[in-house]
């Protein structure tokens, strides 16, 4: 089985979010980048397939050279090779188009992406990619098993979960549950050394134009201070929620 894991390179949640150039650009100054958490679960599941069932695992990112340390980290965790499509990630559609090209060229059976990325939280790329690559698609995936060309997945739905059966080629939008947190691997020295020798291929993008464009950014208005209610006058809280906040 040929597996491709899509890796999105995102600011760590604890990063300060600021904008520059009149609020039109994300300020990368001092921002710590990580593998999108949903992709880390996916990558770890891919390693399980590799070790238990035999599979090759490639990772891919659409982005500039600054994302290479993130791809190297994925290699250190155990992926066999990495691909970087050399173009900035503009919108979900453009990224999905580039990925679809990689999937078609590489003949992947299974593409593991994340439910959503934590930068734009679009939840767009995996579904678009599946439709473009003519593959089946299951998102919010919390369990995945593959047997030959058939697959069984569990996905989270509002208020519960459902089990589905499907077949390869398949794209999933994965999340926590795909593997447990305790299964996540921190790259060790040997992994890091080996990652340096693994191939990281830079491919030029195909021609695509974006369908949406973030023209400017804004931050929420600063929040007023919390209104404290004395633990002995909970009446007051009920009153505020009813008359002031109007939520009950």
């Amino acid at each position, binding site marked *: 089985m040929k597996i491709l894991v899509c890796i999105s390179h995102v*600011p760590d*949640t604890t990063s300060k979010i600021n*904008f520059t150039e009149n609020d039109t650009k994300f300020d990368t100054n001092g921002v710590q980048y990580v593998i999108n*958490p949903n992709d880390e679960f996916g990558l770890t599941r891919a390693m399980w397939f590799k070790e238990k069932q035999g599979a090759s695992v490639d990772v891919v990112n659409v982005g500039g050279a600054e994302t290479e340390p993130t791809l190297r980290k994925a290699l250190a965790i155990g992926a066999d090779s990495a691909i970087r499509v050399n173009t900035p990630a503009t919108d*979900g*559609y453009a990224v999905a188009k580039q990925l679809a090209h990689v999937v078609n060229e590489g003949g992947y059976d299974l593409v593991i992406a994340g439910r959503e990325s*934590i*930068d*734009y*939280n*679009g*939840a*767009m790329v*995996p*579904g*678009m990619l*599946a*439709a*473009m690559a003519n593959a*089946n*698609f299951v*998102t*919010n995936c919390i369990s995945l098993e593959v047997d030959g060309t058939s697959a069984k997945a569990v996905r*989270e*739905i*509002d*208020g*519960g*979960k*459902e*089990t*589905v*059966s*499907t077949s390869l080629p398949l794209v999933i939008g994965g*999340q*926590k*549950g795909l593997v447990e947190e305790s299964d996540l691997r921190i790259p060790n020295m040997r992994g890091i050394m080996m990652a340096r020798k693994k191939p990281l291929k830079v491919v030029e993008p195909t021609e695509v134009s974006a*369908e*949406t464009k*973030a*023209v400017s*950014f*804004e*931050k*929420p208005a600063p*929040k007023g201070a*919390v*209104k*404290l*209610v004395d*633990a002995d006058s*909970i*009446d007051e*809280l*009920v009153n505020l*929620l*009813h008359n002031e*906040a109007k*939520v*009950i």
Partner: protein
Amino acid sequence: MSILVYTESENGKLKKAALEVVSYAKAVADQMDTSVTAIAVNANDVETLGNYGASKILLVKDTSLEAFNAKKYAALIEAAAKQEDAKVVVLSSSADSKYLAPMLAVGLEAGYASNVVEVPSSVSPLTVKRSAFTNKAFANTEFTTDVKIVGLSNNSFGLVESEGSASVENFSPTLPESGVTVESVDKATDKVSIADAEIVVSGGRGLKGPENWGMVEELAEVLGAATACSKPVSDLGWRPHGEHVGQTGKPVASNLYIAIGISGAIQHLAGINASKVKVVINTDPEAPFFKAADYGVVGDAFEVVPKLIEKLKAFKAANA
């Protein structure tokens, strides 16, 4: 040309989110000087949509579509959008809508913006405000495509009634093979789900153990709320994984979020920031949650929550 809106239902009944997306679509239609067409699948009460601004309803009645199927539903909406020559398609942010929207976008060659929180600031080019960076910022997003898909963040617009009524037409386009078959569904039918809830009551590690959740459930029951929890609580097995909210769990965009014994770590807040009003109950006045909350009680949950339940019961009795 009209605006097409996908209205979700469950067991034949429209969801509240369906009324919200229609209300929103009506506001956008007014800006664009056009009308709203809604599409619904197996819903029995579609006439209601007229009261929120739909003037036409395409009703799909098909027993093979009882279980949600993203690819088939996307194909239905695509066919409806083409028939109606819709230039804007509006969806909610439910798990189902977010599942089908990207496939629909490819089918319609439409741009798609999810988590939109307001009516468009401009209709030409169509520009919407969407939340990004786990609700720490907003991106004003412009569409460059002819057809546009707007995914509305839940509870961001509310319900707005309008005068009028809707005509209902049966709609039954041919559908593709889906490739994904639902084998079984495991869903609590007697509880409000976090995604649908207007109020969410959430407990953290401060509650000490699973045996103390009785009061959380009781509070939720009084409020008609869904119950949720912080990540360590589900990791410890005190509560089911489906209740875990936050960056790595479910997103919450309720009108009211009550956090009990939750410290307010940034990864927790990332998932609940979209909620309108936040209340925190915590013994530690230094807990970071107090900086993110609108109302706070510094106190022991084991004393405060029972009191709150009692006062809410009295409030409800007085306002019944």
